[in-house]
């Protein structure tokens, strides 16, 4: 039996480089509860960034191809750039514990439509504990919304506390559902320290801008590393 040297686990199976030695696409995961606006955020990001970046999307629908079809219907990307992965009733398993199908999907997208700059991996709607494996994505966004309750940032959980970007979506609904945005910002700060939080309303013109800017920064940092 051959085993790797005790101290080293060569990352050859989730490599950061393409076969030709260039840096592969940045992989960004989007997770969060059902209905918080993950798919809408992905669609808006694609529409905003697709003119200057080569993008593909992997969706992890829970039991249909609804999310993939939403993206297709809204024509944010050509069909060959959108892949739906099936998750066997466990969306968090497919992005965290056993990332096989998602890894294969992102690599297949790179192979068939690449070279790509950015691959967005959208999780199926899940709970506050669902986070992405670092073997699958390079950075992750957790999307919640004001209408699900302004106490969610206070409740915390791995998605809220550890995501590289927390998006609080549907701010336009705050006055109608009695959500206190300042309290949400304060609680998020307490949970996350210096990690960024973006408040968005995708109904507003260019409402996804804070998220798109953050993705742009991540991409610049990704490319800057030799």
């Amino acid at each position: 039996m051959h085993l790797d040297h005790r101290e080293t686990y060569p990352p050859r199976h989730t490599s950061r480089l393409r076969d030709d030695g260039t840096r592969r696409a940045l992989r960004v995961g989007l997770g969060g509860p059902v209905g918080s606006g993950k798919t809408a955020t992905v669609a808006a990001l694609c529409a905003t960034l697709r003119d200057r970046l080569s993008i593909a999307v992997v969706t992890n629908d829970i039991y249909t191809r609804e999310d993939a079809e939403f993206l297709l219907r809204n024509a944010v990307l050509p069909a060959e750039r959108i892949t739906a992965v099936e998750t066997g009733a466990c969306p968090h398993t497919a992005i965290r514990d056993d990332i096989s199908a998602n890894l294969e999907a992102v690599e297949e997208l790179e192979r068939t439509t690449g070279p790509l700059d950015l691959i967005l991996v959208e999780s199926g709607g899940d709970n506050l504990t669902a986070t992405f494996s670092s073997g699958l994505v390079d950075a992750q966004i957790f999307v919640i919304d004001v209408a699900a309750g302004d106490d969610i940032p206070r409740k915390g959980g791995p998605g809220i506390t550890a995501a590289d970007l927390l998006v609080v979506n549907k701010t336009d609904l705050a006055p109608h559902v009695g959500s206190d945005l300042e309290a949400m910002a304060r609680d998020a700060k307490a949970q996350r320290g210096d990690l960024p939080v973006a408040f968005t309303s995708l109904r507003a013109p260019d409402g996804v801008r804070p998220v798109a800017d953050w993705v742009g920064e991540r991409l610049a940092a990704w490319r800057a590393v030799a």
Partner: protein
Amino acid sequence: MTAAALLLLADGRFPAGAHAHSGGAEEAVRAGRITGPETLAAFCRGRLHTAGLTAAALAAAACAGAVPPGALDAAADARTPSPALRATARRLGRQLLRAARATWPAPELDAVARDHPGGLHQPVVLGLAARAAGLAPRDAALAAAYESVGGPTTATVRLLGLDPFDATAVTARLAGDLDRVADLATAAADDAAARGTDALPAASAPLLDIAAEAHAARPVRLFAS
């Protein structure tokens, strides 16, 4: 050491993509053929002695190493009439190969990845992974046999809300069958070393094949197969 490697390889938590597949259970549940522990047991027994035996023999032969992986893959193709199941088997084979290469690095596994970019049938890769882990052909057969009933059982717990204790008892009561299938499969793999892949069992369950095609065409489903 080898006993522990077998536990690892057969563990449902081994990250090789199997969790998204029901082994035909989702379609059987939808058709009303699996409704509780008794019907789950019947389904599993049927799958074990047909598709399970065939998979176990392929895994044992791959682990033994006397027949080249490509020839075993062709034999698996010939024993899998459903195009949907052939695609699923290769997909799971690719995913298992990735996990196996990371877990038990071996030049032989690297060569398979290089020579078969489209993937090999999962039981063939399972046998090669077992070999890289230092396991014997019967271990590989047992892992394949166990997987042929473990997948549908876990899926049924999720699909029907079946009592997990009942579901686990179903698997436990199949233990004797699992051992017998592993013995048969290992003997067949021995034969195949001398007589070629025609010596491998070709037990199949037509309803599993038909149901797999129906399942693959459904727009709404929880499991990939």
